[in-house]
């Protein structure tokens, strides 16, 4: 596999904690200059991947390339061009926001004092920069964590659930910041559980489950190719409609929609809603409702539920994925 033009690549990455596997051969390919949405259920291995990418832990097998060059135990200097926020932001509670950034700036790549002020402004903490971090709200700590990740103006930014605790304005501001970074050629690798947010933010997504990649690619292509179309027909026409839809896709791609009586869902490219409608009409069945559900949430649930390789994924509170 070639890794040219990639800001980040992993090949066959494996990691266990004790006897529990966290990554089972992960292959990621993150192109340069994009926002990459890194998705997966709880326990899928997202944070573990981030830890490996920042040298906090070391792989049992497999390789990592960061900014086009191999990244191993002896390559900590490569991280001078990487900024990261992993799991929860970490600060000295008794220091104020500015002092915390200064303390952090004393490590790794050199950072100017002006940069710190610029970042406090960017994340909207200028007025609170003199307050101790222990007096910050959850979202304020998160903002400071994002500022910390941006300290060295990194070419590659790794953010583990950065939207955690941010208010709506904070989320919009973060989205704009990350989009802006990508537009200047920087690469942003961001994990998130807020799929609506990822859908708006990311150019490329990778979905992992149980420590393996299950899908990766430009978000538009994935959603176009993997959507779902839902139709509502009269109760006595459900069975004929099911047959027709099964012929259009495959019989097992058709299921009862979760929205109630008369709804059928078919897993088919979302762009084919018109085909579905035409096929039904051709058989004299007129849909009283038609929706194309090509959102990230359906795709995510469909790909990550019950692949049963020992991870934490699967149904959660009894919610079945893929249909609704």
């Amino acid at each position, binding site marked *: 596999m070639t890794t040219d033009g990639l800001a980040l690549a992993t090949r066959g990455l494996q990691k266990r904690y004790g006897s529990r596997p966290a990554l089972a051969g992960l292959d990621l390919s993150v192109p340069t200059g994009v926002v990459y949405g890194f998705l997966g259920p709880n326990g899928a291995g997202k944070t573990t991947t981030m830890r490996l990418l920042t040298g906090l832990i070391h792989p049992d097998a497999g390789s990592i390339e960061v900014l086009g060059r191999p990244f191993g135990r002896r390559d900590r200097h490569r*991280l001078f061009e990487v900024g990261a926020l992993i799991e929860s932001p970490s600060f000295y509670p008794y220091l104020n926001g500015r002092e915390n950034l200064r303390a952090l700036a004393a*490590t790794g790549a050199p950072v100017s004092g002006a940069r710190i002020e610029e970042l406090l402004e960017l994340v909207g903490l200028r007025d609170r920069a003199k307050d101790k971090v222990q007096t910050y709200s959850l979202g304020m700590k998160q903002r400071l964590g994002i500022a910390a990740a941006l300290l060295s103006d990194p070419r590659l930014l790794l953010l583990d659930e950065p939207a955690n605790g941010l208010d709506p304005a904070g989320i919009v501001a973060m989205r704009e910041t990350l989009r802006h970074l990508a537009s200047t050629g920087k690469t942003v690798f961001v994990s998130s559980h807020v799929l609506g947010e990822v859908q708006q933010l990311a150019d490329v997504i990778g979905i992992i489950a149980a420590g393996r990649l299950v899908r990766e690619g430009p978000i538009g292509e994935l959603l176009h190719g993997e959507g779902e179309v839902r139709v509502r027909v009269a109760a006595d026409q459900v069975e004929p409609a099911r047959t027709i839809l099964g012929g259009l896709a495959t019989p097992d791609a058709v299921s009862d929609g979760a929205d109630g009586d008369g709804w059928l869902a078919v897993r088919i490219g979302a762009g084919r809603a018109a085909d579905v409608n035409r096929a039904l009409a051709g058989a004299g069945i007129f849909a009283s409702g038609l929706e194309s559900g090509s959102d990230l949430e359906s795709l995510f649930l469909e790909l990550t539920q019950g692949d049963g390789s020992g991870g934490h994924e699967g149904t959660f509170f009894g919610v079945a994925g893929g249909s609704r």
Partner: protein
Amino acid sequence: MRIFVASLRKLVRRPASFVILGILIGLLSLILIAVAATASQPDAPPGQRAGLLLVTFPGAYTSILSFILGLGGLFAVIYGAAIAGSEWSWGTLKSAVARGESRSRYQLLSFAAIALMIGVGVLIAFGAGIVVAVIGANIAGVSTDGLSDAETLGTIPELLGRGWLATVEVGALGFAIATLARSQLAGIGAGIAFFFGEQFATIFLSDVVKYMPFNAANAVVATPGEGGFSDGGGGPVISSLEPNEALVVVVAWLVGSLLVATLFTERAEISG
């Protein structure tokens, strides 16, 4: 150097630095004043009157210092453990490592800042102790002529230097323990347990225990013929190392502790 300065700045801002120094000076003052006040009562029994030696210069210089180092040992192990442990508990070491910082350099320079803070703390406590002892001497009506005893004053810099090294050594012990424990609380707890465990073991195993960190630290500053506050933790002193022998042992513990802390950090999987 950036890290050293930043670490120093962090320690200066850290409440623990002041709390520990404050408690040390408070206890020292309390004891000196109390001893001076009771010992100077006309009807005090001879045993209590001996307490006046604590505020009688020049001997008071060494008593104060041995008090500071005895209690300071406990405080230094707590201080070292608190600082090393919180780096793991708060995740701040993680942030530095993720920025590409060298783990060993970060740990060693953080400890260098602790060592400097301990030195400053010992000096401040010593100065405060002298002031309080002078006050105590006045309360007890003891002459303070010995304050300027040239012979004793000449030995003080070396004693302070040795005392600093000894305190730094137990600070390093706390630093190493908390690094292994990866936790502030566990590190402090284990450090305190080590301190009392060693004091306790002195009673039974003095031949071995004299090589242990706290006993060796005490022996570094022991002046012949003078029983300090801390010697033997109240128990009988059966044997202890010669001061210079103790110096070697202390340096060995210091280097060993830092080596353990650094190697462990270097190899640790930071997954908390």
